[in-house]
C-alpha cells in the first residue's frame, strides 16, 4: 500500500521559500499549568478587586491559547488543579485533578476555559471540592507522568505552578524532601519549573527556591517573577514561546579557530495556516496524495523512474534528483569569518534580501565558545565593525554572504527585564545577482531649505515610538476571529483593532496646519497631485502602445513567432493554454515555454 503514496510534491509553495533558511521542526513545546485551588486563590485582591487570582490565571491561559492557535498550534498544554477534593489523575493521587490533558488547544479546551473564567469559590467547590492538604511531590509526579505519556516528540518542556502558600510543607521535612526529589526528577527530564504567586508576601526561600533552581542550570535564578505578573498574559506568552534553535553550527575564524553557536529566528511572517481539504460528508481531513503514472503503460512510476529536467536555449538537460541536491553543496557547513568592515559601510538598509537570524554561543560542542564569542562581541561593538562571513546554514544549503551585527545586552532599568539579548544578528547581504539597476531622473530639482524645514516641522508633529509588538496583522486577526466565531459558535466574530489604517482624523488634527504649510512650500499653486497623476498614468500607458491586448483577439501564433508572449498576463496565458489544450502550470516563464513548445511542435 505504501508504494502508492509518495511524497506530495506539489505542496502549497507560497511560504516555503522563506522557511528554507529557518530550519526544521525538532519536536513540540509543552507546558503544564498547575494551579493551586486553595481559598486565597478565590479571594478578591484588595487593589485589584475585579478578579480573583484564579480568574486572572484562567483568563491569561485562555488568551494565550487563542494566541497559540495562530502562532504555534502544535504546542501542547495541560492544566492541573491541586488542592481539590475530587481526584482525577493517572496514579490516583489524592487532591489532584487533571482538568485538561496535555494536548494541543481545541475548541473544547478553549470553551471550557472561557466558562471557567468567571467561576467563584462556591461553584468551584461544588465541581471540584476543596482540600487544604496536598503533596507537592505528587503534583510534580503527575506532571512528569503527563509529559511522559504523550505520544508526541517533545522539544521544550515546562511546568508553571501558580500557588499562594510559599511554604506548603511547613514542619514536614519528609514531604519537603519528597517534593524536592520529584522536582529534581523533572529537572533530570529537562523540564523547566516556574513558580508564581499573587501572594504579596510570597518568598522563594522557605521552599520553592530548591524546587525551581536546577543545580546544573546555567541560567541565573530569577528571584522575583511576581513583579512580572502585572501583565500575566504577555508573561505567559513569553514563557511558553520557547526560542527554538533552528540549528547549532560551527563558527570559524581562519582555518583553526572554531566555536559553536546556536542560530535563532528573529522574525518571520506568520501566515494563515494553509486551508486543508476535508471530506464534506464526514468533515474529516482528506489528505492529498499524488502518484505518477507512465502515460504509455499506465504503471505507477517509482521515484527512481523520474528525473528532473530544464530546457535552456532549446536543449533539454536532465538530472537525477540527487545531482540537483548536490549542486547546492558548495560551502562547508557553518559560518566562516572572512574579515571585518565598518558597520555603516557593510550594512545598508537597501541591501535587505532575507529575514535576519540571531546567534548565541553554546558550550556543548566547543567548550570556551562563550568566552571567545563574548570577546568578539565586545570588540565589534567597541570598534563599530561587523564580521563579514560566508554562511552555509545547513550542510546542503547554498552559501550566502552575511554580516554579523553585534547587539549589546539592554536591560530595562525599572523592571530589570532584558530588552535585547547579547549576541550577533546575522544580516543577509545580497549578491550582485540580487541587486537591480534603478534609474533616477538625471536632473532632479533640489528642495530649498525652507521646504526642508516645512517637512521637518511636519514630521516632528507625528513622532511615535515604533514597536512591532503594537501592530497586529489585521488580515490574520480577522481570519482567526472568523474561525473562532465559527468554532466557538459566536454570533459575530469579535471586532479587531486595525492599527494599519492610518487615523487620518488624528493626523489632520495634530498636524493639519503643518501639512498645509508643507503643501504650500512644495507644491506650485493649483497643483493637484491626484488629478495630474491619473492623467499622466493614462497618457504614459497610451504611449506604450495602448491597453494590453485582449487574449481572445490575440493571434497566438504571431505572438509565439515574435517571442512576445511575455507581454500577456498570466491569466491570459492560462486562457490560451485552455483554448489549445496545453498543459501550462507553474511560473509565467514555464507557461510561456509550454505554449512555445506547443506551437513549435505543431509547426
Amino acid at each position, binding site marked *: 500500500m505504501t508504494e502508492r503514496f509518495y511524497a506530495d*510534491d506539489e505542496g502549497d509553495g507560497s511560504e516555503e521559500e522563506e*522557511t528554507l533558511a529557518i530550519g526544521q521542526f525538532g519536536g513540540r513545546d509543552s507546558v503544564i499549568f498547575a494551579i493551586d485551588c486553595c481559598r486565597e486563590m478565590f479571594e478578591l485582591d484588595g487593589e485589584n478587586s475585579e478578579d480573583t487570582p484564579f480568574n486572572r490565571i484562567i483568563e491569561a491561559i485562555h488568551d494565550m491559547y487563542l494566541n497559540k492557535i495562530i502562532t504555534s498550534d502544535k504546542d501542547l498544554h495541560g492544566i492541573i488543579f491541586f488542592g481539590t477534593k475530587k481526584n482525577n489523575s493517572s496514579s490516583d493521587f489524592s487532591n489532584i485533578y487533571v482538568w485538561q490533558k496535555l494536548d494541543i488547544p*481545541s475548541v473544547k479546551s478553549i470553551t471550557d476555559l472561557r466558562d471557567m473564567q468567571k467561576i467563584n469559590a462556591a461553584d468551584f467547590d461544588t465541581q471540584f471540592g476543596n482540600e487544604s492538604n496536598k503533596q507537592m511531590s505528587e503534583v510534580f509526579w503527575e506532571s512528569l507522568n503527563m509529559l511522559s505519556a504523550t505520544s508526541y516528540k517533545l522539544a521544550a518542556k515546562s511546568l508553571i505552578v501558580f500557588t499562594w502558600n510559599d511554604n506548603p510543607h511547613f514542619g514536614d521535612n519528609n514531604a519537603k524532601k519528597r517534593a524536592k526529589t520529584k522536582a529534581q526528577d523533572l529537572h533530570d527530564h529537562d523540564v523547566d519549573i516556574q513558580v508564581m504567586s499573587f501572594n504579596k508576601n510570597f518568598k522563594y526561600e522557605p521552599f520553592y527556591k530548591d524546587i525551581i533552581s536546577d543545580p546544573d542550570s546555567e541560567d541565573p535564578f530569577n528571584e522575583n517573577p511576581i513583579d512580572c505578573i502585572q501583565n500575566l498574559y504577555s508573561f505567559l506568552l513569553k514563557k511558553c514561546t520557547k526560542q527554538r534553535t533552528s540549528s547549532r553550527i560551527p563558527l570559524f*575564524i*581562519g582555518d*583553526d579557530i572554531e566555536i559553536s553557536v546556536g542560530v535563532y529566528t528573529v522574525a518571520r*511572517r506568520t501566515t494563515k*495556516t494553509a*486551508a486543508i481539504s476535508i*471530506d*464534506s460528508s464526514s468533515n*474529516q481531513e482528506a489528505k*492529498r496524495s*499524488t502518484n505518477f503514472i*507512465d*502515460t504509455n503503460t499506465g504503471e505507477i*512510476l517509482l521515484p527512481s*523512474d*523520474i*528525473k*528532473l*529536467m530544464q530546457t535552456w*536555449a532549446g536543449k533539454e538537460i536532465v538530472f537525477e*534528483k540527487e545531482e*540537483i541536491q548536490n549542486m547546492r553543496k558548495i560551502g562547508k557547513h557553518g559560518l566562516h569569518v*572572512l*574579515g571585518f568592515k565598518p558597520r555603516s559601510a557593510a550594512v545598508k*538598509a537597501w541591501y*535587505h*534580501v*532575507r529575514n535576519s537570524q540571531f546567534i548565541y554561543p553554546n558550550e*556543548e*560542542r566547543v567548550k*570556551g565558545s562563550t568566552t571567545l564569542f563574548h*570577546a568578539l562581541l565586545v570588540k565589534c561593538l567597541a570598534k563599530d565593525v561587523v564580521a563579514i562571513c560566508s554562511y552555509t546554514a545547513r550542510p546542503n544549503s547554498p552559501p550566502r554572504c552575511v554580516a554579523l551585527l553585534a547587539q549589546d545586552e539592554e*536591560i530595562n532599568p525599572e523592571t530589570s527585564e*532584558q530588552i535585547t*539579548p547579547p549576541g550577533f*544578528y546575522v544580516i543577509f547581504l545580497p549578491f*550582485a*545577482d540580487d*541587486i537591480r*539597476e*534603478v534609474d533616477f*531622473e538625471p536632473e*532632479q530639482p533640489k528642495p530649498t531649505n525652507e*521646504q526642508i524645514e*516645512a*517637512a521637518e516641522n*511636519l514630521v516632528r508633529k507625528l*513622532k511615535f515610538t*515604533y514597536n*512591532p509588538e503594537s501592530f*497586529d496583522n489585521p488580515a490574520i486577526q480577522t*481570519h482567526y476571529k472568523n474561525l473562532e466565531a465559527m468554532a466557538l459558535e459566536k454570533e459575530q466574530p469579535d471586532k479587531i483593532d486595525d492599527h*494599519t489604517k492610518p487615523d487620518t482624523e488624528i493626523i489632520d488634527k495634530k498636524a*493639519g496646519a503643518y*501639512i498645509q504649510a508643507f503643501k504650500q512650500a512644495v507644491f506650485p499653486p493649483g497643483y493637484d497631485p*491626484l488629478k495630474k497623476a491619473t492623467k499622466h498614468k493614462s497618457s504614459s500607458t497610451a504611449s506604450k502602445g495602448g491597453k494590453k491586448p485582449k487574449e481572445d483577439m490575440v493571434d497566438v501564433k504571431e505572438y509565439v513567432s515574435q517571442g512576445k508572449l511575455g507581454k500577456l498576463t498570466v491569466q491570459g496565458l492560462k486562457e490560451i493554454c485552455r483554448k489549445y489544450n496545453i498543459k501550462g502550470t507553474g511560473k509565467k*516563464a514555464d507557461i510561456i515555454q509550454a505554449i512555445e513548445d506547443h506551437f513549435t511542435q505543431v509547426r
Partner: protein
Amino acid sequence: MARAKEAIVFCLDIGLGMQTAAPGYPTAYDSAVKVLSMLIQRKIFSESKDEVALVLFGCEETANRLADTDDNSYQNVSLAYPLGNVSFDLLEYISYSLKPGTKVADFLDAVTVSLDILYNETKSKKLNCRRIVLFTNFSHEFSNDSLDGIIGGFSADGMDIDLCVIGPEIDIETIGLNGKDETNDEESLKDEPSTSTSLPKRRKLNHFNPSIDPNTGKPKTCQQMAGEKVVTKMFNGGVNGECYSFSQATKAVTGFEKKSVRSAAWKCHLTLGSELAIPCVAYAKTKEAKLKQTWKKCHAKTHKTADITVNQFYHVEDDQHTEVEKENIGKGYKYGKDIIPFSSEDDKQMKYATEGKSLSILGFTDIDNVPPNLFVDDQALFVLPESGDNASCTSLSAMVLGLQKQHLCAIACYIYRKGTNPKLVALIPHITEDNICFVMIGLPFSEDVRTLSFASLKDRKAHQPSDKQLQVMDELIDSMDLSDKSNSAELYPPEHMLNPYFQHTFQALYRRSQNPNAALTHTSDNVSTLLKPNNDVMERSRVKLEHVQSSFSLQKQVWKKDADLKEAWKKVDIDQADTQGSSSISGLQIAQISVPTVEKVGTVSPDSDFIALLSNAEGSAIEEIFKQLQKKIEEFLGDPFATRLENKIIVSLKTLINHAQKHNQRDNVNKFLHQIKLRVLKMPFRASFVENNIAPIDESVSAEHFWSDGDRAADRQEDEEQEDDEQGADELLDMMD
C-alpha cells in the same frame, strides 16, 4: 520585469600578443576566453533574448564584409558567429573549438568591422542598447589614421553604440594627464557620477605598478600604452563605455547584467492624513534572485515530460486510506485540534478587505527603532518621485531630507493592490550625492516577531574574556580589515559578488548539456573561490589568528554524529558521572543514617537503593533485589526520555555487574544483559556502554564486541541513510517552489 534587448558584438583578440605571459600568470588569451564564456553562459541562463555576434582578430583567415570589398584592409579579422541569439553552440565553440590565432591584427580594424555589423544587422531592429565588447591587451600595431571616423561611427545615424574594453588595467587618469586632452578628461571625470554610462572611477591599486600589466605580470610595452591612449581618446571623444580588467571579470559580468534586469514600476500616492498626497513610484532595488526555471519531472528512460501523468487523489487517514471523490472535497481550517469547515465563499465574505493600492504614512519614528534585524520579506524597494513631475520630486525630496535631519523614518501601511493584505513598511531616507529617495522595507507584525532572551554574558564570570584576550581579538579584527582603506579595493562588495550557487548550477547545466552521460564533477575553482577567505587577508592575519588561538581555550567535544543533539547531553552526563561516581557512594553512607530505610529499588537513585537493600538482605531476598533493579533498568529503557536517563542506566548496570559475583548472581545478570541487548542496540547507547565496559561477566566477550551485531549495525546505517534522503526530498521541494 521588462527586459531590455541588446545587440552585442564580442570582439576578441586571439593574436600572438595575447599568448605570452610571465611565468605563473595566465595569458591574456586564456583570461579573455574565460570571461567571454562566463558572459555567454550567464546570457543563456538568464534566458536573454539579446543578439550577439563574435568577431575574432589575429586569426589566420579573413572573413568579413569590409574585407570582401577591400582586399588590403581588415585582414585577419573574421566573423566567427553571426548576430543571433545566444546558444550552446556558441558556448561550445568558445570552450572547445576556438584556438589561439597565428597572426596579428589591428584592433581598430576589428572595431570597425564590429561597427559595420551592428549597422547592417540592427538598423531596423528595436533595441535598447548596441554594444561592442573588445577583448584585447593592445599588444599589436594599429593605425589610428581614421580614428576620428571611427569615433564618429559610434554615434552615427542616431545609433548610440557603447564600447566596453576588457583588457589590461588601464589607468585612464594617468594617461589623461599625460595626454593632450587634459581638460576634456577632467571634465569627463567630473561628470562621472551623474551619468551611469561614463567611465567608472578607477582605483589605483597601490601594490600594482600602473605600468605593469597586473594580469600577465609583465611590464606594459610602449605599444600597449599607445593602444590604451587611443581608447582613452575614444572615450574622451564622446564614445560611451566602460573598461574592465580581466581580473574584474565578475564586475564586468554584473555590469552587463544589471542593465538587463529591471523592476516593474509600482505607481502610487504617498499619503499623510487626508490632505497630503505625493505621487511616487517604487521599484525593487534588491530582491533575492531565483533560478529562471523550475525543474520539471520527466521519465527516467525517455526523458520526456509527457510520459509522466500526474495523478492526484484525496483519501481519509483511515486504515483503508479510503479515497474521497473530488466532488466531495471541501475546504476547512485547523483550529488547534479541531477542523472548522470553511468554504471559499465564507472566506471571500469574511476575509479582511482592502480597497486598493495605497502607501499611507502612519507616523514617524526614530530611525534606531527600525534596525536592520527587524526587516522582513525578501526585498528592498526604492520609492522615487513620479518621473517628470517636479512638484512630486520637490515634495518627496524635502520629506526625505527633513526626516534625515530629524533622524527619523516613516512607518507606513502598504497595500500592493486591491485584495492583497496590508503590510507594514519602513520608509527610510536614502540620500546619495545625486539621488534622494526612500528605501521601503517590510516590517514585522506582532505575530511575526520572536522575542529572544538569553543569559547575560556580562554576569557570567566563567565567560569573561581577560584583558589580554580582548587585546588579541582587537588586533585580529584590525588585521582582517576588508574595507577599502589604504587604497586597495574593498573586498567582498555585494554589488560585485556573484551567487556561487547560480554559477555552480549554470556550470552543471552546461556540462550536462555537453555530455549528457558523464557524471558531474565537483565545483570548479572560480565558483568555490567566490566566497573563500581572501589569501592576502589570511596572510596578513596569520600571526594574529595564532595569537587568538593560543589565548583562548577552546575544547572541541567529541561527537559521534554531528547532528545528534541528544548525544551532546549524554557526553556531558557521562563526564560528570565519572567524576561523581565514587563520591556518591560515600555520600550515600552518611545519608543512610538519617534517611528512612529503603524498602524497594526506586526511580530516583536506584543504584544506592539497591546497595542499601543488599546490605541487609539474605537468601532469596537477594535475587528479588537484583530483579528489582533489573526491572528498573528495563523501565528506564522503555521511558520516552530514555536517552536522558542514560546516566542512570549506566550507573545501575555497573552496580548490577559489580555486585553480581559477590552475591552469586552472575548467570542471572548475564542472562539479563542478553535480554536487553536488542533493545539497547536500537538506542544510541552503544558507545558509552563500551566506554563504561559494560559486558557479561566472564564470557570473554569484550564490551565492544558484545554491543555490536553485524546485522543491527547495518540496519542502523540504512536508517540513517533513509533519514538523509527524506531531508533531501524536503529541500528539493523547497527548491522547486
